[in-house]
């Protein structure tokens, strides 16, 4: 109600309708300077977050020649070409800047020294001579999609994509299952040693993978996991975060439901997958989001454990190409876009769930 009265009071002060809309905070007072400052800050921040990514996406559509332009153009351009009746092939278009034909767009048929022989596509019979310095190339919008097809066809992009996808999906499924099983036992069974197990799992929160890199490598190599996708998957499936998150959630599921299922002849396993898992869906979703994010983006451990390029994940492939391909940024950029695309699409669809889920998990 307060909004409505505020909004109707404002036009009397002569503000534009747009300003009313922007100023209509849900507070009990109208917009004050802090509101305006907030909007300015937030819009600026949003630009800062999006523009670099947008720039990457736009750049990835430029040809190598377009990328080399300095200063760069915002949109992808390439030199325009035109077909001329009576002559085979296409000819580059130029705009004449000086002389009789200033302002006209002509196609260059031949260049001799500092003179160009040019033809008006509208009147192809007459050849016009123009000094090279008196003209500039005509550019036209052109998205170089062939960057993408080159990435897919010339490099083993699909292989790396598949490796990343396999690791992400399999690791997430195993993570969800293992962590949920542990959380179920820790939240719903009263067994000797429960406290110790829980404390041990929580203690591993303090041991980030970076500080046990060397021994983990040893164990992976002893288990024959070096240079195998499973070597990336296994070490990370038992996450203390996941066990903790799921346990806290499962504690809120009433024990009576489990008793009811037991009376309904369900085995403990059935009770776990028919009752407990479906009811934990919100917490599982949060963990799934975390897991997908961790796995798709994981870098240091795969870098250590995968050394043959046919096992590379997208991240490793990107890293190694940025060392090799510094001369062909167009391909590197296209590949970068392809790497961030899946996560971006997921985020676009699940944006609300992801931010809310992580906020609720983070606070606990």
């Amino acid at each position, binding site marked *: 109600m307060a909004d409505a009265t505020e909004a109707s009071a404002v036009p009397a002060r002569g503000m534009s309708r747009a300003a009313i809309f922007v100023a209509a905070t849900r507070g009990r007072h109208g917009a004050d300077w802090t509101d305006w400052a907030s909007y300015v800050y937030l819009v600026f921040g949003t630009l800062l977050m999006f523009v670099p990514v947008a720039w990457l996406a736009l750049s990835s559509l430029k040809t190598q020649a377009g990328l080399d332009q300095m200063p760069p153009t915002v949109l992808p351009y390439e030199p325009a070409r035109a077909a001329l009746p009576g002559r085979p092939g296409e000819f580059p278009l130029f705009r004449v800047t000086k002389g009789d034909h200033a302002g006209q767009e002509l196609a260059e048929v031949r260049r001799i020294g500092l003179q160009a022989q040019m033809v008006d596509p509208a009147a192809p019979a007459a050849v016009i001579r123009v000094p090279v310095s008196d003209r500039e190339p005509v550019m036209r919008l052109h998205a170089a999609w062939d960057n993408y097809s080159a990435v897919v066809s010339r490099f083993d992009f699909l292989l790396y994509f598949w490796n990343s996808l396999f690791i992400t999906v399999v690791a997430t499924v195993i993570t969800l299952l293992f962590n949920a099983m542990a959380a179920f036992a820790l939240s719903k069974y009263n067994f000797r040693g429960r406290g110790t197990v829980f404390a041990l799992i929580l203690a591993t929160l303090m041991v980030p993978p970076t500080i046990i890199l060397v021994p983990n490598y040893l164990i992976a190599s002893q288990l024959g996991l070096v240079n195998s996708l499973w070597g990336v998957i296994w070490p990370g499936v038992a996450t203390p975060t996941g066990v903790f998150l799921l346990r806290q959630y499962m504690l809120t599921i*009433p024990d*009576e*439901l489990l*008793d*009811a*299922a*037991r*009376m*309904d*002849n*369900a*085995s403990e396993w*059935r009770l776990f997958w*028919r*009752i407990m898992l*479906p*009811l934990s*869906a919100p917490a599982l979703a949060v963990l799934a989001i975390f897991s997908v994010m961790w796995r798709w983006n994981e870098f240091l451990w795969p870098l250590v454990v995968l050394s043959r390029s046919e096992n590379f994940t997208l991240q490793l492939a990107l890293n190694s190409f940025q060392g090799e391909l510094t001369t062909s940024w167009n391909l590197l950029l296209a590949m970068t876009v392809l790497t961030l695309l899946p996560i971006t699409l997921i985020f676009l669809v699940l944006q609300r769930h992801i931010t809310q889920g992580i906020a609720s998990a983070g606070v606990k």
Partner: protein
Amino acid sequence: MANLTLHDVRKRFDDVHVIHGVDLEVRDGEFVVFVGPSGCGKSTLLRMICGLEATTSGDIHIDGRRVNDLPAAQRGLAMVFQSYALYPHMTVRQNMAFGLENIGTPRNEIDARIGEAARMLRLDQLLTRRPTQLSGGQRQRVAIGRAIVREPKIFLFDEPLSNLDAELRVSMRAELAQLHRRLEATMIYVTHDQVEAMTMADKIVVLQSGRVEQVGPPLELYNSPANRFVAGFIGSPRMNFLPARVVTATQDATLLELEDIGPVTAPPRAGLRSGDQLTLGIRPEHLEIVPGGTGATVQAVEQLGGLSYVRLSPHDIVAQIHGQTRLAPGDAVSLRMAPDLVHLFDAEGIALPAALLIAA
């Protein structure tokens, strides 16, 4: 349908004894209510019967078979939980089918049983709904339906009406009683509400601190409570307890002196001697108030229209009067009680038996 026998059943959680040796017999088709204040062990006892809680010692027999070591699912019982415990992610139909699926009942058999139960409980229109889309009473009926389709030997109810509002509780009470008549099944029902116990039970088991205080039909418990606890628990408003001293005890009558009130005559009891300290119990509905006189003073009057409650001093006595009254706070009154409606309890709270009362 089956009978159930408990023999010296005990339960201990670590060092805490919660059930102290319960003996009980439930006959085929009986509606038995466990009643008692919260924490008396009635729910634990129920959970031991159904197998969700292990028995520390003693034997539980169903149809003559010892079931102590059988898991809950194999005892052939069904339970209706206090919170209903409906699976929130399943529809009404799936909720009812779950238990049958788990024992591999054929699909058409499941459908037939659900159809029958749904008709009986008027759930036909709700089968595709989820529990969250149901009202409290509907959820309650689904919980009962889930028990019915299992065709259990014994139905167990754990305070099933405590989550409903007062009006719904009354109608569900009647519905449950009707269901019992219709199914002719053995039912065990746990509640802390003595009204539910009185209205529904064939047999009431009163529990306190893990002990059975008395077992019997509702009116027997009302008319001749075995001890002070049962006397106070059954009946509403609760029985008045007045300290008394035996003046004379003869074969025809007992003359008592009520502390701060005056003399009163009670039926004869064996083994009383003058000077014994007793407790006299009289239900508010049996207490007669005569305006004027001495013995008590009116403290407050609650007029409900059809009946009135009068609070008196000393001893916070409550009297129930049929109809309306003109008594006002401050009025001096005298108390009368029919001798055969008086209960006497010894110093331990055990009722002194009176042959007269049973005849009445």
